[in-house]
């Protein structure tokens, strides 16, 4: 009884052992595979991935495009996020309200709506025809609002005692910003920002709606030709996991390190 309990129940304190972890991970995976397998059986589908080889160049291009969109958007959304976090604390009321409205609107509406709205109305009116450029801008504006909240949260949690200590040792405002606020904010926001990068990668799939030829759009095109819908999307999922799993892993590691430091 005791052995069974140790195998399947997490102890109230401390960690469960490695063997229990492996066994239960296997059981959970088997369950997921079984549900999928039974579902596929029920609708009489058999997987055949042989066609993937012939599309490898297009798939690779789509993969690279997703990475490019992701990385460019990460940088641009960081800039937007920093500016609007700063703007939300501005003494200029019009700037403060502008940033508040921006963050509230973006966080309160779905990305797909924003993509259509910005691309077809704003994009057309202002003559931004390059789909990569408009895609990156739309995605960055969307993610920027979330990053603004991450940064604002970490600014608010900046302990007063640290700022007082900075003044006490004789730092000027610039020195305080450079030697105290920035380094502490960077370690504090890094885990959340890394996690946000995973979101950017996933959210970039919606840019397929405006025909940015990234991973999802590539798969949509391939599946439109060979009707291998299940295989295409299954493989697409794997490709996204290849990108997001390492990022999540890094994010978790950073989080643990940050917790230790505080």
């Amino acid at each position, binding site marked *: 009884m005791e052995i069974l309990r140790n195998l399947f129940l997490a102890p109230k304190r401390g960690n469960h052992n490695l063997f229990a972890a492996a066994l239960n991970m296997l059981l959970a995976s088997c369950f997921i595979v079984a549900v999928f397998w039974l579902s596929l059986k029920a609708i009489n589908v058999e997987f055949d991935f042989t066609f993937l080889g012939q599309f490898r160049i297009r798939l690779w291009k789509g993969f690279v495009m997703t990475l490019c969109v992701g990385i460019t958007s990460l940088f641009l959304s960081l800039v937007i996020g920093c500016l609007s976090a700063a703007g939300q604390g501005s003494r200029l009321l019009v700037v403060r309200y502008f940033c508040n409205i921006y963050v509230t609107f973006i966080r309160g509406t779905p990305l797909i709506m924003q993509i259509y709205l910005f691309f077809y109305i704003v994009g057309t009116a202002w003559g931004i025809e390059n789909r990569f450029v408009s895609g990156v801008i739309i995605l960055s504006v969307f993610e920027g609002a979330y990053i603004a909240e991450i940064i604002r949260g970490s600014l608010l949690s900046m302990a007063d*005692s640290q700022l*007082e*200590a*900075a003044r*006490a*040792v004789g*730092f000027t405002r610039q*020195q305080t910003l450079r030697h105290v606020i920035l380094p502490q904010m960077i370690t504090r926001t890094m885990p959340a920002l890394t996690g946000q990068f995973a979101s950017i990668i996933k959210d970039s799939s919606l840019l397929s709606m405006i025909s940015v030829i990234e991973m999802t759009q590539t798969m949509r095109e391939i599946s439109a030709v060979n009707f291998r819908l299940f295989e295409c999307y299954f493989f697409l999922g794997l490709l996204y996991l290849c990108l997001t799993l390492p990022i999540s892993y890094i994010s978790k590691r950073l989080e643990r390190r940050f917790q230790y*430091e505080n």
Partner: protein
Amino acid sequence: MKIEFYGLSKQFDQDRTVLKPMDFSDDIHTLAIIGPSGGGKSTLLRIIGGLILPSSGRLYVDGIEVQPDEKVLQQHRKKLGFVFQQSGLFRHLSALDNIVLPLVEVHGYSKIKAEQRAMELLTRFGLTSDIDKKPSALSGGQQQRVAIARAVAAKPKLLLLDEPTSALDPEYTTEVLDIIKELKEEGMNFIIVTHEMGFARHACDKVAFLCEGMLMEYGRSETIFTMPETEQLQRFLSKLLEWNV
């Protein structure tokens, strides 16, 4: 160091007066500020240190007025050393860097000289094996010793300590108070806000009793403890003695 202030007061909100207008003028070597919690001790220390501005009144240090201007205040703070109740160290820096950074950035030391000075102090305070540790990896007592090392590193004219031992276990308290007493013997001037009455009485020349935002008594420590004049101080001291061994 001569400290003078006239009509000094502090109000935080419209109805929350922490310090009522008070005057003071004396040469300070070692001064303990004592009194019940919420009496304005820490606020007074921070005003003297230029960390917060008084609502009214003027402050003079060695005859020169400390004007309420950020540049003047920064110059004023440079000449002082601060030790806070807790978490006064920069969390993201090692013990060594906590001392080195202000020396280099504020006091114009070269990196090598700053490190030498920091090592000298850390060794003296028994922290040689902890130089690379972040504050979170140090015990409360070790943190306060690093904080004192940082405060005295640039040889300040006056050390300001705000309840440096109130967050510590008794064994660490003694070790921190010993260090402060040692510094006194080397001629360091300091003002300490403290609840350690033994330390105030035996290690400080003068004692100021602050209660309800007023400077109720001030004088030589022996006199303050043996012949308290006001009812408030008598009550305060008798309360403290209630549980003494």
